[in-house]
Structure formats: structure tokens, C-alpha cells
């Protein structure tokens, strides 16, 4: 089983390397198949681990330094426990259909091999995070995920907007990762180890009892790292722009797995801290709530079908983070799992629509696609119903448990926020559903249904999106993850009051969307936007957060940079370097006259010098 775990981790890397160093394979039609096979390994082993109930931990010392009397070992390992098994299933069973879909979606792309090499590299990095046994390993793969995300967002590198988005994603994540790194170093300084189990044991034994504030600070710093990857306010700005990448990338990385890595990592880390981590939970819950509402409101005014889903992802990540803050890690993981399937499905449907409409992404240029693309329509519908939490589809279970968790922790206001956000979710999802699939077709190019290789993955994911919530909830998913329940929590059960309330709110959301866009008409929404134009402007401009950052970088940072340049040019170059230079030039100019080239003069100087030396030594000797 240990061997299987290592193979699972390394297979995508091998595929990525193979596709990179073999140009003839990279250009051939079999390039996608190699990548698909490497991901299918993950799906297979995750199922194997789940059925056999494997628990294992295998370590390999990568580097070893002498340190403080002992050695500092940098370990790369694989750890299979209930948490990583669940995450493996997400990566494998969402990843494999998306890879199949990508094969159809990217067909005819001249550099399809490069795409699949990068995509496989991403899966390797993601599996590294899933399998990680210690903070250092998770950080290494965390950065690898960031790098492969950069490569894939900037896949269409000839498009300036894609390059900008890639840079934005990378830089935003770097800022957050700095917090993560500080947190890891702080943990190491108090616990003396990077290993999750060692730290958890030390906390359990009370060895770190005197360091509780440091532990809390480390927890917050590590959460800051998660805020970057999981795109929480104020680091959320990169995720909507990341939609510049190919749609399968958006589906796998920026909806299903990579952005969820932050939540997964926080569960791993906070499990170590045990009960010590109580102080910062308000901060985490608030971050999640702000993100959930902010993103949901922005999603209502988006016109790009992928942007709607991107903001929806932000909003749902906000839900997961709220559950984290409430201490219900298993519930967060539950929502992560269901979300991965239905959001992956929705993105693939969006990809299918974009593909069918000849790379048109504006929903106002779609419409009436229900007849033209029936499979995509039905799959999108299932995904939407699951996301909005229609009873007994998967989103219903996971989202209601989060609301219940907030209720149990007496975050009364936030419970309302979460419920209202569910209504907003229904509103923006139904809006994009009506705009895309109902009414008359508003575009130019003739839309067509996607080929089987793209619709089969949709159907596969649709089944899971519908059923997974019930399977997880009734199949004892929370008990399965009971080791990762926060302190003082227990598995939750659907509360009828909460379930009915949120279902009613969701239906109201659908009703509002239907009244504005129900027949596929767009004029009602436009007139409302016109009437409340200040609000509309605020939402369209994403609360001016991007503009604020632009101002921050453009004015404050550039101003400081200009000041630094002034100091550099005038003081360092002008004085510290300039004055010695000028003195050397001046003295050389003056001394140049002595070099006459006349032999006698040189001899004269030589004799004079020797005479002076002789006189000096005679006088010195005389004293």
C-alpha cells in the first residue's frame, strides 16, 4: 500500500516530465492519454485506500542538516488517513473527468501537450499537499501549486490579459504565503518539529501550554496562507481574473481542488493545535462571512458565465471558512467535497457552453441553448440545484450543516448572513441559467452540442453532484472524520427549522431571478440596474477593491520606490561612489604629466627616491 501511495504521488510528475522532455510525444495525439492515465491512478488508489481502510505514513529524508546538537531533517512523505483519503477521492474523481473533458475541450490546440504537462504537474503538486506529513512539505507543494497555477492561468500567453492574470495570482499568493511561512517558522520555533503528528502530540501532552499565544498567532498566520490560496477577502482579487485560463483549469484548480487546498491545509494544521486554537476563530468566521456575502453580491451583476461561477466559488469558500472558524472541520471538509463535484460540474458545463458557442463567454450573447445543448443543459441544472441547496441534493446537506454549525456556536448574525447568501446564490445561479439556456439565442455563431468526450464527464459528475451529499451525510461521513472535529463539537444533524428556512430563502432567490429573467428577457434586469445605478456601479466595480489595490501599488508603493531611487541616484551613486571616482579621475589627470617617457627623467626620479630613502634610514638609525 505504501508503494501505491508513492506511485499515486509520483505518476503525474512522471507524466509531466515525460511530456516535457519528449517533443514528439508532446505533439502527438496520445499526449492527453498519458496525463489522463496518471490522474486515473489517483482515482483508483483513492478507492483502494477507502475500501481497504488503509492508514499509513511513509517518510523519506530528503535533506539533513546538523542543527543545535541534533539534526534538522527535511522529510518528504506520504500520509494516508481518513482526511487525506477523502481529499484523494476529490482529486481523483473530480480530476479524471475533468482531464477527459479537457481532452475534448483542448482538441486542436497547437500546444495541447504543453497544456497536459502543466496540468499533470498541477495534480502532482496537489497530491503533495494531500499526502503531506509535515509543514515544510506542505509548504513546498503549496508553492508548486502556485507555480503550476501561474503556468496554467498564463497558458494563452499571447493574450496580455492572461499574462496579467497569471502575475496577479502569483503575486497575491506570494503575499499570503509570506504569512504562511512565518506561521510555519513560529510553530517550528516552539515545537521544534515540522511534523503534524509530533506537533499534535506535543500539544496533547501539554508541552506547549506556556506558548498558547504563540500557537494562536501561528494559527492566524497559517490561516493567512490559506486566505491566499482559498481566495478570502482581502486576497480574493486573483481568483476571478484567473478565469483567463482554459476552462478545464478553472474547473479543476480554481473551483474544485486548488482553492480548497487552503481549507484542507487549515484542517490539517488546526487539528494539530487542538483546543489551543480558540482565540482567532472569530477572525476566521468573519473573514469567511465577508467573503461569502461580498462575492455573492458581485456575482449577481456579472455578465461572463465563468466570472459568475468564479464569484460563486469565492462565496462557497467563504462558507467553508465559516465552518472552519466555528470549529466544525468535518463540516468544512464535507462542503469542500460536495462543492468540488458540483462546482467542477458547473465549470465543465460552462466550458461546454463556451465551446459550443465558439468561445463566447458573455451570457447576454447566449440564450436558448436548452434545445441546442440538451445534455449540457440538464447537467448544468443538476449542478445549479445542488449548489443552491435544493433539498436532498448534495449542497443542501453541506450548506445546512454549516448554517447549523454557526447556530450551535451562537454566531446568530452570521447565521442570517449565511442564509441570505444562500438566497443570493440561488439568484445569481438562476440568472445565469435563464440567460444561457432560455429565451431566444442572442449570439451570432451557430451553437452546437459538445462531443461525447465532453458530455460523458458532465454526466458522471452530475450523478455525484446529486447523490454525494446524501451518501456522505447518511453514510456517516462526519463520524468518518470525527478525529478532525474541532474541540467541543460533535457530528451535526439536519435541523428542520434551518433546512426549511434556507429552502424558502433559496426559493425566493429563484423566484426573483425568474421574475426578471424567466423568459430569457434581459430588459427588466437592465432597467433595475439603471434605476439603482450607484449600487450597480459598486457591484460591477467589485466594491472598488481592485482599484484600491491599484492605487496602493500605483501611488504608495511607486512613491516609495521613487524615493528609494532618489536616494540611490543622489546619495549612493552621487556621493558614496561618485566622490572617490571624481578624486581618482582628478589625481590621475594631474599625475599624468609626470609620465614624460624620457628615460633620463625616470632615472633622475629613481635616484632621487633612493637618496631620500637612504637619508631617511640614516636619520632613523641615528636616533
Amino acid at each position, binding site marked *: 500500500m505504501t508503494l501505491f501511495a508513492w506511485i499515486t504521488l509520483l505518476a503525474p510528475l512522471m507524466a509531466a516530465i515525460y511530456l516535457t522532455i519528449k517533443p514528439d510525444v508532446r505533439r502527438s495525439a496520445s499526449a492527453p492519454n498519458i496525463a489522463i492515465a496518471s490522474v486515473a491512478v489517483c482515482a483508483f488508489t483513492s478507492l483502494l485506500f477507502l475500501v481497504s481502510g488503509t492508514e499509513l505514513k511513509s517518510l523519506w529524508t530528503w535533506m539533513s542538516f546538523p542543527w543545535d546538537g541534533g539534526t534538522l531533517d527535511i522529510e518528504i512523505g506520504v500520509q494516508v488517513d481518513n482526511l487525506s483519503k477523502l481529499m484523494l477521492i476529490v482529486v481523483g474523481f473530480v480530476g479524471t473527468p475533468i482531464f477527459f473533458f479537457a481532452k475534448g475541450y483542448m482538441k486542436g490546440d497547437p500546444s495541447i501537450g504543453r497544456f497536459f504537462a502543466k496540468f499533470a504537474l498541477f495534480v502532482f503538486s496537489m497530491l503533495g499537499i494531500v499526502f503531506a506529513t509535515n509543514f515544510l512539505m506542505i509548504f513546498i507543494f503549496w508553492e508548486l501549486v502556485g507555480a503550476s497555477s501561474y503556468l496554467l492561468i498564463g497558458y494563452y500567453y499571447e493574450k496580455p490579459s492572461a499574462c496579467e492574470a497569471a502575475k496577479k495570482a502569483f503575486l497575491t499568493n506570494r503575499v499570503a504565503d509570506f504569512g504562511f511561512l512565518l506561521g510555519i517558522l513560529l510553530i517550528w520555533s516552539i515545537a521544534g518539529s515540522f511534523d503534524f503528528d509530533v506537533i499534535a502530540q506535543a500539544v496533547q501532552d501539554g508541552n506547549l501550554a506556556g506558548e498558547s499565544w504563540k500557537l494562536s498567532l501561528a494559527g492566524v498566520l497559517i490561516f493567512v496562507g490559506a486566505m491566499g490560496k482559498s481566495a478570502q477577502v482581502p486576497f480574493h482579487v486573483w481568483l476571478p481574473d484567473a478565469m483567463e485560463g482554459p476552462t478545464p483549469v478553472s474547473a479543476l484548480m480554481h473551483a474544485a481542488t486548488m482553492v480548497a487546498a487552503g481549507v484542507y491545509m487549515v484542517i490539517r494544521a488546526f487539528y494539530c493545535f487542538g483546543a489551543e486554537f480558540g482565540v482567532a476563530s472569530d477572525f476566521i468566521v468573519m473573514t469567511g462571512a465577508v467573503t461569502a456575502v461580498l462575492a455573492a453580491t458581485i456575482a449577481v451583476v456579472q455578465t461572463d458565465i465563468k466570472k459568475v461561477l468564479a464569484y460563486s466559488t469565492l462565496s462557497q469558500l467563504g462558507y467553508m471558512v465559516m465552518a472552519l472558524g466555528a470549529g466544525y472541520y468535518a463540516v468544512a471538509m464535507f462542503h469542500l467535497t460536495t462543492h468540488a463535484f458540483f462546482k467542477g460540474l458547473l465549470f465543465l458545463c460552462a466550458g461546454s457552453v463556451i465551446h459550443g458557442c465558439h468561445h463566447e463567454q458573455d451570457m447576454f450573447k447566449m440564450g436558448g441553448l436548452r434545445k441546442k445543448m440538451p445534455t449540457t443543459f440538464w447537467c448544468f441544472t443538476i449542478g445549479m440545484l445542488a449548489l443552491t441547496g435544493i433539498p436532498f441534493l448534495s449542497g443542501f446537506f453541506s450548506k445546512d450543516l454549516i448554517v447549523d454549525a454557526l447556530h450551535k456556536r451562537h454566531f446568530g448574525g452570521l447565521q442570517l448572513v449565511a442564509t441570505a447568501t444562500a438566497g443570493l446564490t440561488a439568484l445569481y445561479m438562476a440568472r445565469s441559467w435563464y440567460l444561457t439556456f432560455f429565451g431566444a439565442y442572442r449570439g451570432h455563431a451557430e451553437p452546437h452540442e459538445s462531443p461525447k468526450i465532453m458530455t460523458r464527464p458532465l454526466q458522471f459528475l452530475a450523478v455525484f453532484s446529486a447523490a454525494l451529499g446524501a451518501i456522505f451525510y447518511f453514510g456517516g461521513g462526519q463520524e468518518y472524520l470525527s478525529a478532525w472535529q474541532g474541540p467541543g463539537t460533535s457530528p451535526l444533524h439536519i435541523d428542520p427549522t434551518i433546512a426549511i428556512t434556507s429552502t424558502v430563502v433559496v426559493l425566493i432567490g429563484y423566484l426573483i431571478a425568474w421574475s426578471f429573467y424567466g423568459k430569457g428577457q434581459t430588459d427588466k434586469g437592465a432597467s433595475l440596474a439603471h434605476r439603482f445605478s450607484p449600487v450597480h456601479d459598486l457591484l460591477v466595480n467589485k466594491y472598488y477593491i481592485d482599484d484600491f489595490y491599484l492605487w496602493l501599488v500605483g501611488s504608495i508603493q511607486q512613491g516609495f520606490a521613487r524615493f528609494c531611487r532618489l536616494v540611490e541616484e543622489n546619495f549612493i551613486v552621487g556621493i558614496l561612489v561618485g566622490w572617490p571616482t571624481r578624486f581618482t579621475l582628478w589625481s590621475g589627470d594631474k599625475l599624468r604629466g609626470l*609620465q*614624460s*617617457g*624620457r*628615460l*633620463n627623467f*625616470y*632615472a633622475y626620479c629613481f*635616484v632621487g627616491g633612493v637618496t631620500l630613502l637612504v637619508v631617511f634610514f640614516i636619520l632613523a638609525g641615528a636616533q
Partner: protein
Amino acid sequence: MTVGHMVTLAGVLFTLGIMGVISRRNILVVLLSVELMLNAAALTFVAFSNWHGNLDGQVMVFFAIAVAAAEVAVGLAVVIALFRLRVTVDADQVSMLKQ
């Protein structure tokens, strides 16, 4: 003839050599003057060797003569090369060293 006489003679020869090196324009004469200085130094070696009753100084003289012979060979070769290039042995006519 005391050691004082001999050292005085050596000093006079050395000064003559220096004056020759500094003041004469003809490179051949300059080389001759250098030889004069070398021999003045050799003379002091002999004088002190005699005075101390120690032969070490006289060994040094042979050594100095051998080195001087080599030096003259190189110096004359340079002068010949210079003459071929410039058709002069006047040091004032030759100031290429400053370039």
C-alpha cells in the same frame, strides 16, 4: 691603502655612474654608466671582504659580474632593436614609454 680609500674610490665611481645615467643622452653611454655603478658596488664588496678577511664578498663579485654580463646582453639587444626601429640611440628622441 686602507678600506677607507677603497670605499671612497667606489663612492666616486658610483656617483660618476649616476651622473652618467641621469645626464647623458646616448643610450650606449647610459649603459656604460650603469656598468660603472655595478663595478663600484663590486669594489665595495672586495674592500669589505679584504677588511673582514672573509671571502664571501668576493664570491658575490663574481656573481655580480655574471649578472652584469647577462644584463648587458639584454640591454644591447634592446638598443640594437631600437636603432633598427628609429635609427637613433639618443634617449630624448625615444619617448614611446609614455604611450
